[in-house]
């Protein structure tokens, strides 16, 4: 390893061409996919230590809401949106609420320094964590959906659509959650934002939209999880309109790309103060 030649003094002209010096002593940067996989794997392993009780809470909460709504709605489209809404609520709880708390606490405690002093692309940290949190939601979402279908007498035949709904709604909501956690100036605010987002997903996603006033319906349209809920709810029909389902999922995907990009920007901003 060479050091700087004496001619290269502050204010002086570099004696060696810039390109020759650029790699001087530099270690290799971490590439996107391997580091994303490493972050994902590390985050997933955290579930064993810290997340399992919270995943139970997420599932019981959604199952409880489905049971509660059983006393209010009977069947038909309202039942479909209750089942779809309570299933996607698990995604909102974990990806939005828990992820914003995680990043809020990581930022406040100085834990981001660990990642910021490694040559890892910011997108790998954000996407790896978001993907892991979205994965945490899979069992709870499936349990809630199966339980809800049994409770309201809905068919299980199109349950597979959840395999698309979870990652796409998960991307949109976890991007939002990560951005909230990284941008909030204090960890309590990050927690608050996550809780508010979760409450919005609960009220706007689970309660049947037809009974809502116009302004609430507008707010419902602005929430990315709504499109995941609608995509799943539509598949309960005897002959679903797959084009509309696909369009709903497309909205989720679009919002997901934007919110993950915002989260990546927020990470950069939070890492170097």
């Amino acid at each position, binding site marked *: 390893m060479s050091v700087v030649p004496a001619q290269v003094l502050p204010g002086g002209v570099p004696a060696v061409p810039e390109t020759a010096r650029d790699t001087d002593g530099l270690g290799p940067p971490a590439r996107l996919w391997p580091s994303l996989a*490493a972050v994902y794997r590390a985050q997933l*392993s955290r579930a064993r230590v810290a997340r399992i009780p919270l995943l139970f809470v997420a599932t019981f909460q959604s199952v409880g809401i489905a049971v509660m709504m059983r006393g209010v709605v009977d069947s038909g489209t309202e039942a479909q949106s209750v089942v779809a809404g309570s299933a996607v609520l698990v995604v909102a709880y974990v990806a939005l609420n828990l992820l914003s708390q995680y990043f809020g606490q990581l930022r406040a405690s100085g834990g981001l320094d*660990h990642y*910021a002093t490694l040559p890892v692309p910011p997108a790998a940290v954000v996407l790896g964590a978001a993907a892991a949190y979205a994965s945490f939601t899979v069992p709870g979402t499936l349990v809630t959906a199966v339980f809800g279908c049994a409770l309201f007498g809905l068919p299980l035949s199109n349950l597979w659509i959840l395999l698309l709904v979870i990652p796409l709604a998960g991307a949109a909501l976890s991007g939002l959650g990560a951005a909230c956690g990284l941008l909030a100036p204090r960890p309590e605010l990050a927690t608050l934002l996550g809780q508010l987002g979760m409450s919005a997903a609960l009220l706007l996603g689970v309660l049947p939209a037809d009974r809502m006033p116009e302004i609430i319906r507008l707010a419902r349209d602005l929430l990315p999880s709504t499109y995941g809920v609608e995509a799943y709810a539509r598949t309960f029909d005897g002959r679903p309109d797959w084009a509309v389902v696909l369009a709903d999922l497309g909205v989720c995907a679009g919002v997901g790309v934007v919110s993950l990009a915002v989260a990546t920007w927020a990470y950069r901003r939070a890492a170097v103060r």
Partner: protein
Amino acid sequence: MRAVQAPREDEVVRVRGLTKTYPAVKGRRGTPGTPEVRATDGVELGVRRGEVFGLLGPNGAGKSTLVRQLTGLMRPDAGSVEILGHDIVRHPERAARLLAYLGQESSALDELTVSLAAETTGVLRGLDVRRARAERDAVLEELGLAPIAGRALKKLSGGQRRLACFAAALVGERPLLVLDEPTTGMDPVARRAVWAAVDRRRAERGTTVLLVTHNVIEAETVLDRVAVIDRGRVIACDSPAGLKEQVSGEVRVELVWRERAPLEVPEVAALHERAAESGRRWTLRLAPEEARAAVATVTGGAAFAALDDFTLATPSLEDVYLALGGAARQGLVKA
């Protein structure tokens, strides 16, 4: 302050005129405002290849702010940082490819196992998975962490957790290690493992170490050179022995009284005026003959009955810090 030295060829880290000011915070209801703080104030440093260079100072002296600017985590208001010829102020992202940083916080790794923390850090430092695993195994073995490799960091004691974070910092070799109080909470065995690992890397690869500490005993034993930081400025920079020569004419006398000092003894009352008092303990810095007289006084007659313990010692880096006008009276740790 010394004049700026001419840059040496073997300098790995070169810091010139580094300044960072935290803006004043306006008081809100219930919380008083804080005035503007100069966290680093025109810092000049040069760290040579292969040396263990220390930043010594009490809490709040500006050590961590300085380190954050060296590692690219914080942009200075003015001044330059060069690491191996790379301008870190202009290209802060290069710092991560030049140095390994052990910060004081482990929250990013707390819920991982020791083994996964080290492996993941290695991959994120640019190693492929196979290489990261091989280095992980070697480092855990070297530091004696292999038996607890499968346990989560947050289930470990403070010292073991610190050692696991140190292990993560060593996976994926870097020419510069920046260690912020690496041995906090460690038992002597773990400390020895840390310094042995550092020495091995210096001897085999010429690794340079920048160490932040407020522990004077550790500073005296492991550092080649030390910069003493006080209120954001470097107030001295030399080898520990060189610094101690500055106060070599003095002896430190520590007196511990049983209940209270016998101030009715005139000689004791005279010493009281020169003592730094901390509970029942008095610390005095005296010329050797004065120290002899003081010891004669307190070990005889009425004063001796009131005396619990006394020690005479040659000056430490703490005495250097105080002699140089360091502001904090109690900031440094002797353990």
